[in-house]
């Protein structure tokens, strides 16, 4: 029985070992080594990679931009997804149509969606002149908001679906009780729906924060980090350090270890916040 269990789990174990555990070990080693793309490992040099990362002129702007982008995206995306979930929560033919329309963009890849908006935003081909926006990607602010619109379009349906599952798990008699107590619509929403939806909302927030902190495709395709490096995210900086320009794998590994640590801390804090509120 034991042997059989392991035999069936062996492919999973092999995949996890070769493509996950070993790479983690390599990246840890890289982060403390002088390791260039072309020359390979040239020995231990800690903590040089880490101090180089912290001293990189794009490091703090990238961190700041990534945080700003994460906050803006998460707030807008979750508010809109919640509104959409409330709109489509009863089933009918009309809500079925609405659900499908909201969800279709989530079938697209992020890269495809970014390419689509790249064409949508460019002055040569845009159908949006009537909005009177001079440039969608030309200034740092415009580039940020244009990217947020793309991400909201691509992901709102996805988060709506997650929240819808949570909404449908709330038993109908809770609403009935609120109604009998004379609660208005807003009161019901504020004091019944939101508290009972907390774990779904928290899960969405965790997914959204994680996804935004690791943003890459949308900026790589839409803005290439511009204008003036104003939209470089941390993951883009990792990519640039490793394969574009610097070709320094050690430095990129050091930065990606820092990102991993930040991600772990943020997620632990979010889980803890969730548990404290429930307790």
């Amino acid at each position, binding site marked *: 029985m034991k042997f059989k269990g392991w035999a069936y789990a062996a492919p999973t174990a092999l995949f996890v070992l070769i*493509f996950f555990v070993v790479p983690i070990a390599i990246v840890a080693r*890289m982060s403390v080594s002088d390791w260039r793309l072309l020359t390979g490992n040239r020995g231990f040099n800690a903590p040089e990679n880490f101090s180089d990362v912290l001293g990189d002129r794009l490091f703090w702007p990238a961190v700041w931009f990534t945080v700003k982008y994460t906050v803006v995206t998460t707030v807008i995306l979750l508010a809109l997804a919640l509104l959409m979930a409330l709109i489509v929560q009863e089933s009918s033919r*009309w809500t079925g149509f609405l659900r499908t329309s909201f969800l279709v963009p989530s079938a697209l890849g992020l*890269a*495809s969606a970014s*390419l689509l908006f790249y064409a949508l935003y460019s002055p040569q081909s845009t159908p949006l002149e009537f909005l009177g926006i001079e440039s969608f990607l030309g200034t740092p602010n415009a580039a940020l908001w244009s990217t947020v619109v793309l991400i909201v379009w691509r992901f709102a349906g996805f988060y709506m679906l997650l929240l819808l599952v949570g909404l449908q798990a709330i038993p109908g008699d809770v609403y009935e009780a609120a109604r009998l107590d004379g609660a208005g619509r807003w009161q019901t929403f504020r004091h019944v729906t939101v508290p009972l939806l907390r774990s779904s909302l928290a899960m969405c927030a965790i997914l959204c924060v994680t996804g935004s902190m690791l943003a890459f495709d949308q900026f790589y395709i839409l803005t290439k980090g511009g204008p003036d490096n104003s939209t470089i995210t941390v993951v883009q900086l990792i990519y640039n350090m490793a394969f574009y320009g610097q070709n320094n794998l050690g430095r990129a*590994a050091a930065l*990606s*270890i820092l990102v991993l640590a930040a991600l*772990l801390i943020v997620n632990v804090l979010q889980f803890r916040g969730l548990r404290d509120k429930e307790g």
Partner: protein
Amino acid sequence: MFRTPQRVLTGGLALLFLFPLVWASLASVSPQAGTAQIDGWGFGNYRTLIDYQAGVGQYLLNSTLVSLMTVVFTLVVSLLGGYAFAMFRFPGRDALFLLTLAILMVPYATLLIPLYVLLTELGLQNSLIGLSLVLTMFQLPFATFMMRISFEAVPKDLPESALVDGCGSFRALLYILVPAVKPGLITVGLFAFLAAWNDFITPLVLISDSEKLPLPLAVANMRQQVMGIVDFGATEAGVVVLAFPCIVLFLILQRHYVRGFMSGALKG
């Protein structure tokens, strides 16, 4: 509950979501200066795609191969793994399961840098097989979780009666359990396909040969054309080719897509 003004408002919101897709499809066949489709409507932009470097056929083939291999690897590994985790007790079971889920916590970029070096050592860098293996690894947390709960939902007496009837555990899996967990397999397969077809940063790091690029990268590269003039018509056509199979699959399998979230949300 929907009166006319609400219908207008919600319908307007739905149109906002559909608009970019409808626009891209129309723009790809409509006349536009600076593209291959200048006079009248037609498929000039798609001809540009066919003529671009190795040709859209080659990139479609690469994407299809990578997606199919990823789907097959993911299905096989997660079917066996889910079976092991749900039906057997063995030392290290919980540790291995948690380790598999932990893949979710680690950024792609953190893994891709060492994987670039590792795959070079293994002779799998710049190969579609190597790319599929890495994409499979990224799918394993969701797929293993999904298959485990699918197997756990199967009534216990079903495999037991098969074992009593003299089936080995593998035959029981193949003939009795696979049909029982088929919905889970479809969900896992759908997610693996969409992820592999659409992944961008993994091939960006792992594939260096332009002949071997999957379609999203090829379309993105196509924008850097001669003298910095971008052919937006070709980009729009590329987006349509990229999006079409995803949207069709999604519309056919929407139920299974939604189910993937239900399982995660209920347990999570």
